[in-house]
C-alpha cells in the first residue's frame, strides 16, 4: 500500500512536471520564433493556460499522498498524541471539500459543453480545460480518502 501510494504520487508528479517542462519549452520556442522570424506560435497563451491547469491539478493528488500540505503545526509540540487523529480529520475534510468542488465543477463543465464555449484564438472547446481540472479534483479526493483511512503505522512507514 505504501509503495503503491508513493508510486501514484510520483506518477502525478511526473505528468505535472512534464506539463511544466512543456510550458517552458513552448514559451521559449515562441520567444525565439517571434524574435527571429516574427512568427509567434498562434494561440500560445491558450496552450500555456491548458498546460497550467494540467500541472496544477494533476499534481494535487500528490500533495495529499505525500502529506505535503502547508499547515500550522504548532500543536505537534503541545499534543503530539492527537496529531494522527487530527491528520485523519484533515484528510476527511479534504475529501468533503474536493468532492463538493468536483460535483459543482462537473455541473459547470456540462453547462460549458451545452453552450459550446470555445477559446478566443484556437477555438478549443473549454471542456478540454475542464478535463484535467475535474480529473485532478476527483483523484485528489480519492487520495485524501486513502489518507483518511490510513493508519498511523502506515503514515509512519511513509515518513520513514
Amino acid at each position, binding site marked *: 500500500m505504501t509503495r503503491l501510494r508513493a508510486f501514484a504520487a510520483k506518477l*502525478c508528479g511526473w505528468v505535472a512536471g512534464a506539463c511544466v517542462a512543456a510550458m517552458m519549452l513552448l514559451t521559449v520556442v515562441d520567444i525565439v520564433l517571434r524574435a527571429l522570424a516574427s512568427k509567434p506560435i498562434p494561440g500560445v497563451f491558450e496552450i500555456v493556460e491548458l498546460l497550467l491547469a494540467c500541472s496544477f491539478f494533476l499534481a494535487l493528488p500528490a500533495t495529499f499522498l505525500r502529506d505535503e*500540505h*502547508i499547515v500550522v503545526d504548532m500543536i505537534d509540540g503541545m499534543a503530539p498524541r492527537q496529531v494522527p487523529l487530527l491528520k485523519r480529520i484533515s484528510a476527511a*475534510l*479534504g475529501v468533503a471539500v474536493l468532492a463538493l468542488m468536483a460535483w*459543482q465543477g462537473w455541473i459547470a463543465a456540462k453547462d460549458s459543453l451545452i453552450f459550446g464555449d470555445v477559446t478566443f484564438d484556437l477555438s478549443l472547446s473549454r471542456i478540454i480545460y475542464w478535463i484535467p481540472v475535474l480529473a485532478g479534483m476527483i483523484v485528489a479526493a480519492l487520495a485524501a480518502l486513502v489518507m483518511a483511512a490510513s493508519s498511523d503505522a502506515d503514515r509512519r512507514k511513509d515518513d520513514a
Partner: protein
Amino acid sequence: MSVAAITILCVAGLLALIFARVPIAIALAGTGLLGYAALDGWAKALKMFGVVPFQLASAYSLSVVPLFILMGAVASRGNMAKELFEASNAVFSGIRGALANATIGSCAMFGAICGSSIATAATFSKVAIPEMRRHGYDSAFAAGAVASAGTLAVLIPPSVLLAIYSIVAEESLPKLYAAAFVPGILLAALHVVAVFVVARVRPDRVPRVAAMKLAARLRAAVGMWKLGILFFFAVFGIYLGWFSPTEAAAAAAFVAIVIAFATGAMGWRELVDALLETAYTTAAIFFIVVGAFIFSRFIVLTQFPNVLAQWVLAAGVRPVSIMLVVIALYFLLGTFLDEVSTILITVPVTLPMVNGIGFDGIWFGIFVTVMCTIGLISPPTGMTVFAIQAQHPEIPVTRIYLGTLPFLAADFVLVGLLIAAPSLVAWLPSLLGM
C-alpha cells in the same frame, strides 16, 4: 444572523481549523464556502465553489509561479551556491565580518534566483555555516546570519511571493519587481550594517579572517557569472521589453537548465527531480491560492474591507497608528503562518484600508513582503530558522533565534524607512516610466 456575526464566526472558525492542523487551503475553502452560503444562499455559494478553481487553474498570470519555481529548483541543484559564496567572500575579504557579509551578499543574489527563503537558508547553511565556524565565528551568530539572509529571497526580484501578491492585489508584476529593487538592496545593506555593529560590539563573535590575494579574489569573483546570466534573463529581460513576466520566467528556467547541463552540474536525473519538486511545490501553493480566493469571495460579500476602511477614515485615526496596528497584525501572523498564506488571507482586507490612508498597492506589496521576511525568522515558527536547525541539530533553536536578533532589528529599520519615505518604493518604477 447579522453579517458581522457571520464574519466573526467564520474568521474564528478559520483560525480554529488552522490551529487544529487542518491544511490552510482546506480551512480557507471550507470556511469561505460556509460564510458565502450563510450570506447569499447555498445555490450561489456552491456555484462559486465549483467555478473558482477552474478560473484560477487557467489564469495565464499564474503561469509565472511554476516557471520561477523551476528556475530556483534547477539553480539550487546546479552547484551555484558554493561558487557564489566564494565570489562574495572574495569581495568582502580582509574586513572583519567578511564571511558573514559574504553570506548576506550571496544569499541575496542566490535567493533572488531561487525565490525560496527556506531553500536558500538550507543551501547556505551547508556552505556558509561550517566555513564561519571553522574561522571561529560564534555558532549562533553564524546560523542567525544565514537564517536572516535567506529571507532576502522573498523580497529581491524575481520573487514568487511578489508574483502571488500581484495576482491577489491585481497589481502589475513588472512594477512590483521594479519597486522591490531599492528596498531589497537596502535590506541587504542593513544586514551588512548589522554585521559591522555586532563585530564592533562583540568582536569575539566575529573574528577577522586573513585577506585573500588580489589574483585569488578576481578568480573567485568570476564565479558569479551563472547567476548573473539568470538574473539578466529573469529580471532585466522584462524591463528591456523583451519578455512578459511569464516569458522571462520560462527563458530563465531554460537558461538555468542549459547552464547546469553545460557545466556538468546537472544530469537528467537531477532535472527530473527539479521538475518533480516544481510540480509538488506548485500544487501546494496553488491549492492555497484556490482556498484564499474562495475565502476572499466571502470577505468581499461581507463588505468588511470597505466598512473597515470607511470606519478608519471616519474615526480620524492617525495613519501612523493604523500602520502600527498593521505592523502588529503582520508580525503576529508571521509567527505562525507561512508567507504565502499571510498574503493571500490578509491583503483583500488590509489593502483597502491602507489605500484609504494614502499608500498605494505597489508600496503595500513591498511593505507586506518585508513583514513576511520578519515572520520567517520570528519565533515560534521561523521557517528559515527551522531549515537551519534541521541541517545543524547541534545548534539549539533558541540560540539561532538569538543570532537573528541584530538582523531582525535591521528588518524593522527598513519597515520604519518604508513608512517614513514611501518614495524608496516609488522611485525606480517612476524612473522607468511605469
